[in-house]
């Protein structure tokens, strides 16, 4: 019965607005076959799009309770996580979703590279995709500040500081980004505006273009660009399946699996909210989020100018990839140079990110305690009397979240304990100094 009502409405609309033309065009494009070589790796793009949708919806919900002012931002996020029903779930979906979206976006870009999907005639698709990557990283960067916790504040400080080292326009850019000399309440409001209105509209436009181009041109074949592209009939004959419903369903199941995985991570290892931002207290070893780590680490090894220009060149090279990488071959097996360079690039980024994670930390390997400096270089910690980590832990009381600031006292009881007698003022009203006197 629903079917009859629906087709009745359809006929009524078609009589007046000729929507059947649009529907037929859409149907024709949606049922175009997808080449046979499209395997499970090709789902990464769809997964990324799914996460964008989830980010949009969860972000919308968060905006109902989030307050974008430096005074109340942190408390509003805490309110969402603790008091709003299912607020913890919405916030976790948004926080984890951001990480998953960027991760799958990277995987998607890598997949496109190795399958030569950026080559003629799909250069414009690649350009749109690159812009989408920039916008997504912009989302990550602006969104990261919004909770206004220690990691937000100082991560943004470091990030904008790096942007400020751009030659010529650097200092102006820095002030423009921050809305002042330092990260402040003005920074928060402009990052919020960019995050919830500017970037979403840009993203929507870009993704519409990107998806249209993909459906219009079809998935790139594996043959060389010199050969003509196969027609839909040829693809079908070669064993390609229709995009709708077969391919959609295939990707749908991947999406569901990834969502299930994210859900389990949300309930077992939720992302915490750290301490409230303190502009006077930089936590030890503050670093950007994982997706910026490789560039952050790379910049440490070279002089500032070389670093910025070098990064700029790399980014430009990636953006203009279809224009300088002109081999007609698409299949990875027939592009040994490109594939090798690609693998090296990916491995280098992973290595740099790992080094960044290791830098400025201490770990114990096989009984010896190593300290890793800012370049990731280890040195043995020379303290002959240092006990093993477990002994000191037994002596200490249970401690709270130490991930941001290892040296601060978080135990509730030790409010009286402080570094030196000189810095303690509050409890000294009646104290008498020992022997030595003032």
């Amino acid at each position, binding site marked *: 019965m629903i079917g009859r009502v629906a087709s009745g409405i359809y006929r009524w609309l078609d009589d007046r607005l000729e929507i059947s033309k649009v529907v037929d065009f859409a149907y024709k494009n949606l049922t175009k076959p997808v080449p046979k070589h499209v395997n499970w790796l090709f789902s990464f793009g769809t997964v990324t799009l799914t996460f964008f949708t989830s980010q949009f919806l969860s972000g919308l919900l968060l905006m109902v309770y989030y307050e974008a002012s430096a005074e109340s931002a942190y408390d509003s996020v805490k309110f969402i996580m603790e008091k*709003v*029903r*299912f607020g913890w779930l919405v916030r976790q979906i948004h926080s984890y979703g951001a990480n998953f979206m960027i991760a799958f976006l990277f995987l998607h870009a890598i997949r496109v590279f190795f399958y030569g999907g950026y080559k003629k005639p799909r250069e414009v698709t690649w350009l749109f995709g690159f812009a989408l990557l920039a916008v997504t990283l912009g989302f990550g960067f602006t969104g990261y500040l919004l909770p206004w916790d220690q990691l937000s504040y100082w991560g943004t400080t470091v990030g904008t500081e790096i942007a400020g080292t751009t030659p010529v326009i650097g200092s102006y850019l820095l002030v423009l980004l921050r809305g002042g000399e330092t990260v402040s309440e003005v920074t928060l409001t402009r990052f919020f505006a960019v995050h919830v209105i500017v970037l979403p509209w840009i993203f929507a436009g870009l993704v519409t273009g990107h998806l249209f181009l993909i459906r219009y041109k079809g998935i790139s074949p594996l043959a060389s660009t010199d050969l003509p592209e196969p027609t839909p009939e040829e693809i079908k004959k070669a064993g390609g399946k229709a995009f709708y419903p077969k391919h959609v369903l295939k990707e749908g199941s991947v999406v569901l699996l990834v969502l299930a995985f994210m859900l389990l991570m949300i309930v077992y290892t939720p992302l915490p909210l750290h301490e409230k931002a303190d502009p006077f207290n930089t936590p030890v070893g503050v670093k950007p989020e994982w997706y910026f780590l490789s560039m952050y680490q790379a910049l440490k090894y070279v002089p500032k100018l070389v670093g910025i220009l070098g990064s700029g060149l790399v980014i430009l090279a990636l953006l203009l990839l279809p224009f300088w990488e002109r081999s007609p071959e698409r299949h990875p097996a027939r592009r040994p140079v490109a594939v090798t360079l690609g693998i090296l690039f990916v491995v280098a980024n992973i290595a740099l990110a790992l080094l960044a994670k290791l830098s400025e930390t201490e770990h114990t390997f096989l009984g010896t305690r190593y300290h890793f400096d800012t370049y990731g270089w280890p040195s043995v910690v020379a303290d002959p009397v240092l006990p093993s980590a477990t002994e000191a832990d037994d002596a200490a009381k249970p401690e709270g979240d130490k991930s941001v600031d290892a040296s601060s006292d978080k135990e509730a009881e030790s409010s009286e304990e402080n570094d030196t007698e000189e810095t303690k003022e509050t409890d000294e009203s009646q104290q008498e100094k020992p022997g030595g006197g003032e």
Partner: protein
Amino acid sequence: METPSLKTEPQSADPAKPTTLTVPGRKVSNPVRRRTFLQRILCAMSGFGLLGAFYPVLRYIEPPPESEGANRVEIDAAELPPGASRTILYRGRPAVVVNSAQGYIAYGGVCSHLGCIIKWSPAEQVFICPCHGGKFNVKGVVLGGPVPRPLTAIPVSVAGNRVIVGA
């Protein structure tokens, strides 16, 4: 060529009667029945999943559990000389405290007509509502205006040099 869609009718003549295809050695059930069965299961599970998504969203946008707000407010007696009134926040809502001729009195400050906040008028020794002319006496009783209900009294006590509003 007919393209299959999720709403395709089964191609066999009578879906109610299962036709079994015999393949040498194995009995294979009607593939169309299997497809419809899977479709139905999928619909049911998607429905359940959507409900599982819709329910939290609904609860999320409902107002969160009330945090009561202070149900005990202390005012310095010096800030409330005889004849003076103050509007404070009590249990999350405005309330009016007056050091009247009859002693300290306090009432919930929200007029029951349309929610405006009442004021104490020292000249007339009454509470008035500035929106539509509601008037209340020192006991909170409605004296005039379109007010449906009298003011709610709040217990006031004195402890030393502090006026305690509430419990």
